[in-house]
């Protein structure tokens, strides 16, 4: 079986961690070809991912901003050679792969967390309250893989890089602007440690307490939906059912009650610490170490003592 893996490219650079995690899942299915819709330099990085047979690169202005219509057309133009078309379950791939699937008249398997065999996959449903095993009867399987459940493939390979023929710009949509926050912190979905704040943090200014602890630990910063909705934190920090799914070595939840929609995004973390002033907060039911305390006292002290 042959697998086409759509690489995650952001601002012209390969998102190596996400792509290498999807490569681990893809390798269970067959020979992996990575498709990089972006610069040759990004394809060269993809070529280092171990176990990859080949890298295809389509360098064209039509793909520069991840527009779904153009990317889907490109993937579909190559689809005939593959039994599986896969990608990491990023916002970008979740935008593109369902479109690819519909163009091929097949279902998409979103957010797969396990590979049983070439037709059969596991995926969480109901905010992770149930895990379904689904068997596909489609000729081509189109799958996004949940990155938090696969380890990244090593990077000691040197696959050949070949050019793929670019498809025409569909003209259906166009790029206007990006508002991307620059940060020196590790990325949320690949960080070893994540410190997240919730509504309990109270304000955007107070979120500095969360950020200070994160910086002390070299951690990424996350947030609950309530914290994002209240404007304490940007949207791309949201962890949960409808935000990012993380599984770091250490997740520290501060002023977060632990609604199932939040747990859906972090309950596979290796160690969970919760700091909350309400000893009944549901977050304590999943926490390895719970501290019942006022975060405004506990956080500065913790940051100090680490």
């Amino acid at each position, binding site marked *: 079986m042959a697998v086409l893996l759509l690489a995650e490219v952001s601002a012209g650079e390969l998102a190596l961690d996400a792509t290498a995690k999807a490569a681990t899942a893809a390798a269970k299915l067959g020979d992996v070809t990575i498709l990089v819709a972006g610069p040759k330099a990004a394809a060269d990085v993809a070529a280092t991912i171990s176990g990859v047979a080949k890298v295809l690169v389509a360098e064209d202005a039509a793909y520069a901003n991840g527009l779904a219509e153009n990317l889907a057309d490109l993937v579909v133009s190559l689809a005939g050679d593959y039994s599986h078309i896969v990608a990491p379950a990023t916002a*970008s791939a979740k935008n593109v792969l369902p479109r690819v699937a519909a163009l091929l008249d097949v279902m998409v398997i979103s957010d797969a967390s396990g590979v049983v065999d070439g037709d059969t996959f596991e995926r969480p449903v109901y905010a992770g309250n149930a895990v379904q095993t689904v068997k596909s009867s489609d000729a081509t399987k189109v799958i996004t893989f949940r990155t938090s459940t696969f380890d990244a493939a090593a990077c000691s390979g040197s696959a050949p890089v070949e050019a793929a023929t670019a498809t025409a710009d569909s003209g259906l949509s166009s790029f206007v602007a990006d508002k991307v926050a620059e940060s020196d912190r590790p990325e949320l979905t690949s960080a070893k440690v994540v410190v997240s704040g919730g509504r309990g943090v109270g304000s955007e200014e107070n979120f500095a307490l969360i950020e200070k602890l994160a910086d002390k630990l070299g951690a990424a910063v996350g947030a609950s939906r309530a914290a994002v909705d209240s404007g304490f934190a940007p949207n791309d920090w949201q962890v949960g059912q409808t935000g990012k799914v993380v599984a770091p070595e250490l997740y520290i939840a501060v002023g977060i009650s632990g609604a199932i929609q939040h747990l859906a995004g972090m309950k596979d973390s290796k160690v969970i610490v919760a700091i909350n002033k309400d000893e009944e907060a549901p977050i304590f039911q999943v926490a390895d170490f719970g501290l019942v305390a006022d975060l405004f006292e506990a956080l500065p002290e913790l940051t100090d003592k680490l």
Partner: protein
Amino acid sequence: MKVLVPVKRVIDYNVKVRVKADGSGVDLANVKMSMNPFDEIAVEEAIRLKEKGVADEVVVVSIGVKQAQDTLRTALAMGADRAILVVAAEDIHDDIEPLAVAKILKAVIDEEQPKLVIAGKQAIDNDMNATGQMLAALLGWGQATFASEVAIEGDTVTVTREVDGGLQTIAVGLPAIITADLRLNEPRYASLPNIMKAKKKPLDTKTAADLGVDVTPRLTVVSTAEPAGRSAGIKVGSVDELVAKLKEGGLV
């Protein structure tokens, strides 16, 4: 301009989900069902477009069991003008896949000719996040998913999208599909008088067969299981104790 909003009847987001002991699925009997939260946001956005004079009619569509008409009535009570129920399942446990939903929606759209479709980003039961994108593909329309801001001017809709690195703004020519993210708006509650009025608004019923769509699933659910459990650990009495535990575990 006509706006069409697909709304799904799903388990209420506050309900604790129970997996059936025989692994055949999730128990939905006698469970509170509601409109998918993202679809409330989509309906709200459509109504606001109408209030601004950009849209002149809001049509809501639901696909599934006949009980989905309750969901449609809720949308009508919020302010939608007209509803279409497409009956495609008998058993409340039968979920119609996004591909089949998209095909049914395409058939409805071929008849209704809306200029804009606003769907939810994701149904909170199957967590697929697929229908809007699939529908756009079937129609050959442009798509703007995960919208947190929508502005329509002439034949173009400018949409700010929530993406992994922050926000992206794109422009899409109409007709187009938008999928609503959480921060697009805060949906209104239906008032009692509007709930009464909604009972008189038109609700058409069709079947998937009327529209010529085969809803046989492509993905067979082999089994449904409880996720690996996680048990509560310990409470620490102080920050010092927490620091000691983290150091013990080699975590810091």
